[in-house]
């Protein structure tokens, strides 16, 4: 794992660091020693062919499943095999490849679940500090409404989340994660199944997040999007890190072209 401190400020250079991550399912290695660093305050794409282990890596990083071996650091803290709620409290939020909205809750409630350490989540506070609970709730509601306006979901605030379209659910997931004020945001194929107009908007939202200081790691197959908004690219193949760098540089890398880019370029040429 590389040295993760800026010499002048002492701030971590990398928001996320993984070393030799491994995960097997019934003997089959889905992640077979992934090693990479995600630079602080940048947008990093995680690309690779189907079955490369991208979603498994995201699940490992977010604590949704434990790794078999290897180490992970989140902004300088070793979070290897921490449960997801502890990692989330440290500032890592995520979205899912197939949207996982809280369907029985309204759109607004989906966002209101996200803030950490809410006073109203304690039985003691509900009955003995009701004013503090109400005040915090009002602040959260105001912030959630602003966030819904930003993401174009304001008019749907009182709809149950299960009633949203696929694209709206993708937006809701990002808005929900933003509501938790993350340091690091993992987006698992945020553009998948989304119409082209919305793809541009989601791209803009991600750039806005970067501007506000959030580090983004996104799994993405759409290389146009990667080229447009990502600063850095990690290529996974067969569960291993094949290469890292800028997409323009990776296009010249024969291993990458053979494993993934050639396949994508061919598909787009013949498609």
């Amino acid at each position: 794992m590389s040295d993760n401190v800026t010499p002048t400020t002492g701030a971590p250079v990398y928001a996320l660091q993984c070393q030799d991550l491994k995960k097997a399912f019934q003997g089959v290695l889905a992640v077979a020693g992934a090693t990479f660093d995600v630079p602080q305050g940048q947008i990093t794409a995680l690309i690779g062919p189907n079955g490369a282990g991208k979603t498994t890596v995201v699940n490992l990083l977010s604590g949704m499943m434990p790794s078999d071996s290897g180490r992970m650091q989140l902004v300088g803290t070793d979070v290897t095999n921490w449960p997801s709620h502890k990692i989330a409290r440290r500032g890592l939020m995520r979205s899912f490849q197939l949207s996982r909205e809280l369907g029985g809750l309204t759109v607004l409630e989906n966002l209101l679940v996200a803030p950490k350490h809410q006073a109203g989540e304690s039985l003691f506070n509900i009955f003995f500090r009701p004013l503090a609970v109400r005040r915090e709730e009002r602040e959260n509601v105001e912030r959630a409404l602003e966030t819904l306006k930003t993401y174009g979901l304001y008019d749907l605030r009182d709809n149950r989340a299960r009633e949203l379209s696929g694209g709206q659910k993708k937006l809701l997931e990002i808005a929900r994660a933003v509501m938790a004020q993350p340091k690091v945001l993992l987006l698992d194929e945020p553009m998948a199944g989304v119409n082209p107009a919305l793809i541009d908007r989601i791209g803009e939202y991600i750039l806005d997040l970067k501007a506000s200081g959030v580090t983004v790691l996104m799994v993405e197959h759409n290389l146009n999007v990667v080229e447009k908004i990502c600063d850095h690219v990690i290529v996974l193949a067969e569960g291993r890190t094949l290469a890292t760098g800028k997409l323009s540089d990776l296009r010249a890398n024969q291993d990458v072209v053979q494993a993934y880019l050639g396949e994508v370029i061919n598909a787009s040429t013949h498609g």
Partner: protein
Amino acid sequence: MSAFWYYVFTLVFFLFDYFILAMGLNIQYGETGILNFAYIGFVAIGAYVTGAASLPNSAGTGQQYIMGWGLPFPFNLLLGGLVASAVAVLVALIALRRLRTDYLAMVLVSLSLVLYDVINNYVPLFNGADGLYNVPQPMAGIFHLTTNSFIPFFAVVTGLVALLMWFIMSRIMNSPLGRTFRAIRDDDGVAGALGKNPFGYKLTSMIIGAFYAGVGGGLIIQFGGSFNPTAWLPGETFVVFAVIIVGGVGNNVGMLVGALLVETLLIHLPAFLPEIPGHPGLIEYIDTMVVGVLLMVMLWFRPQGVVPERVRKSAGMLADRARGRGRQLTTASEGQGKSGE
């Protein structure tokens, strides 16, 4: 008091008692998604502990039981609820940490059967298969109540307890805690990814629900004066499930409606109906079948129950108030926001 009013107040008692029981199961299943098939076990713990705490020392009573402190109402009732909650912590540590839905339900059924066998066979605990009896009628001495006047009196007391517990439950369900419970019910993986500890919240939900079960059980033993294993056969859990499914999962008003339709009208009212000539006792056997059929019909045609879970407008109302106050602040930025779909 005429027999008619005796029947009516008995039904009123069961209406309010099952309202309490249904609220307890609803926060576990309807709000947090815990399929607690051992719920009746917590009702029984509350009943036995309340009864044993109310009874005098067991020496010379012809019964064997622990405690025997002669504890007055409502302290005996509180103790019943608290002990049920304490047992819920143990059960949660065994079952909730690693298991989900169907496996959790199987483990809870098994725990319920183990508890049933222990209490039924270990006589020194709560008098074994004979159960507890001659439990004192609460406050009968203070208000000089007779056997007849005690029934309407305690039905009203139970109504007041139910009102208090409804108020408490409404505060919980409409708070951020209630919202987090529902988030865990909908998808505990997502709730975890948002920084909520699913086990911690499920444990809290189990404790609250078990307290309601314990209090409901405590009221039953004080109303009837006795409680034995035939009163809490494991299948009784499904009657409480029927109450919340028919009434409407996730809604306290639905719990009252379910208690009225299932427990009061279908389970207890038929016991007061005249016998069918030539078929003595038939009505009592039919009522369980009717509940089963009603449950299937509801699950087929109206799974959301008679009073469905409401879309929470409390958040909406807060939103409107916030919008009103924040209009000046937001007007300038409205043009910059991306338009909705």
